[in-house]
C-alpha cells in the first residue's frame, strides 16, 4: 500500500476532462503528479460522494474489460475501495488503449469535491501492482514525440491553466527552464538545498527532499519547521488555519526555496491567501507523519513556476510562469 502525499483536496482546484469507454463517458479528474493510478466512481458505488459525481457504467462500454482485482487507494485526506477494469481512455486526442483504471465502490473524504476521479502521473512504482499508469501506456504506444508533460497553473482566472503532453509550449514561461534531477523515481521527488527568508536559512538547513505535487494545493513541511516559518510571519493558529495580518503582505520577505543551487522565491502575495476578511498562510505542517524531512510543493508553488516533468531524463524543469 503506498500512501500518497498529503492532499489537501479542500483547496485542490485544477480539473480537466477525460473520457473512458466506447462510446466515451466523460469525467472531470485531477491530473495528479502525487499518485500513479487512474480511478473514477463506478455506477454501483454506494458512498454519498458518488451521488454528486459522474459514474462509469461498464454495461454501456463495448470496449470495457473487467479485470476484477480489488483495490484500495489511500490518500492523505481520503480513501477509495473498488476493483480494476480496463478500457479505452482519451485525454484530448491522445488515446490510451486497454488502459487499466480503478472503479470505486466506496469513497471516504471525496464528498462534494469539484472532480469525479484522479488521474495519477507519478512513476509506475507508485501504481497498483500489475497496472500500467496512463502516461506509460501512452508512451509505450508511441503517442509522444517527447515523453514529457508540463503544467501551467493560472493564479487568478478560472480559465487559462493547462496540462500539456508530448512537448513544452514556450509561451507559458519566461527565461530558460532550470533542470533538476529526480532524486527518487516513485513520486516526482527532488532534493532541496535550503529554505530561507531575509537571507537567513529558516528550514531544510542541511538539505531535504521535496515532492512536486499538482494534487496538493498548499505547501507542506515538517510541523516544527513550518512553525518556525509561521513565527517569522507572526502567524497564529485559529480554527486549524494559520492566520496572518493582511498588512503583513506589504512587509514580509519572500520565502526562498533553493533547489539545485537556484533560488525560487515565493512572494508574500503568493504564500498569504486573502479570503473574505482574513489572510492565511499556505504553509501547513504534518509531513513528518509520512516521511521525515520532506516538503510538498503544491499548486501554490506551481502557480509561480511552470513545471516540466521529463520521464526520459528523469528530471523536472522549472521556470517562472508568465
Amino acid at each position, binding site marked *: 500500500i503506498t500512501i500518497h502525499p498529503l492532499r489537501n483536496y479542500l483547496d485542490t482546484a485544477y480539473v480537466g476532462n477525460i473520457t473512458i469507454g466506447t462510446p466515451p463517458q466523460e469525467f472531470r479528474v485531477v491530473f495528479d503528479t502525487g499518485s500513479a493510478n487512474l480511478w473514477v466512481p463506478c455506477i454501483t458505488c454506494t458512498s454519498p460522494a458518488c451521488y454528486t459525481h459522474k459514474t462509469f457504467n461498464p454495461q454501456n462500454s463495448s470496449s470495457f474489460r473487467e479485470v476484477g482485482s480489488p483495490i484500495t487507494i489511500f490518500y492523505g485526506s481520503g480513501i477509495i475501495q473498488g476493483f480494476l477494469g480496463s478500457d479505452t481512455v482519451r485525454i484530448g486526442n491522445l488515446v490510451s488503449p486497454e488502459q487499466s483504471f480503478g472503479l470505486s465502490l466506496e469513497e471516504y473524504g471525496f464528498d462534494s469535491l469539484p472532480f469525479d476521479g484522479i488521474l495519477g502521473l507519478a512513476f509506475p512504482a507508485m501504481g497498483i501492482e500489475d497496472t500500467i499508469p496512463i502516461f506509460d501506456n501512452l508512451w509505450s504506444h508511441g503517442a509522444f514525440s517527447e515523453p514529457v508533460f508540463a503544467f501551467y497553473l493560472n493564479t487568478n482566472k478560472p480559465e487559462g491553466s493547462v496540462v500539456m503532453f508530448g512537448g513544452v509550449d514556450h509561451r507559458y514561461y519566461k527565461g530558460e527552464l532550470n533542470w533538476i534531477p529526480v532524486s527518487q523515481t516513485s513520486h516526482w521527488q527532488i532534493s532541496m538545498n535550503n529554505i530561507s527568508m531575509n537571507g537567513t536559512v529558516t528550514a531544510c538547513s542541511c538539505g531535504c527532499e521535496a515532492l512536486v505535487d499538482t494534487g496538493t494545493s498548499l505547501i507542506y513541511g515538517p510541523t516544527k519547521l513550518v512553525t518556525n516559518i509561521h513565527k517569522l510571519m507572526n502567524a497564529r493558529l485559529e*480554527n*486549524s488555519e494559520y492566520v496572518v495580518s493582511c498588512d503583513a503582505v506589504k512587509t514580509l520577505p519572500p520565502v526562498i526555496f533553493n533547489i539545485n543551487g537556484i533560488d525560487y522565491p515565493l512572494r508574500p502575495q503568493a504564500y498569504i491567501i486573502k479570503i473574505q476578511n482574513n489572510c492565511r498562510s499556505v504553509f501547513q505542517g504534518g509531513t513528518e507523519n509520512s516521511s521525515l524531512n520532506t516538503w510538498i510543493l503544491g499548486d501554490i508553488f506551481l502557480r509561480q513556476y511552470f513545471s516540466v516533468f521529463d520521464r526520459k531524463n528523469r528530471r523536472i524543469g522549472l521556470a517562472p510562469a508568465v
Partner: protein
Amino acid sequence: CIVILPLKKMKTLRETLREKNLLNNFLEEQAYRLSKNDSK
C-alpha cells in the same frame, strides 16, 4: 505534436464551506471519519 488540455480552476471546497460557516464541523467530521477508517 504537443497535446494541450485546458484545466479549469474550480471554486475550492474550503471557500464554499467557509462561506456557509461549515468549515469547522467539516474538518472535525472529516478527521473523525478518517480516524475511524484508519482503525478499519
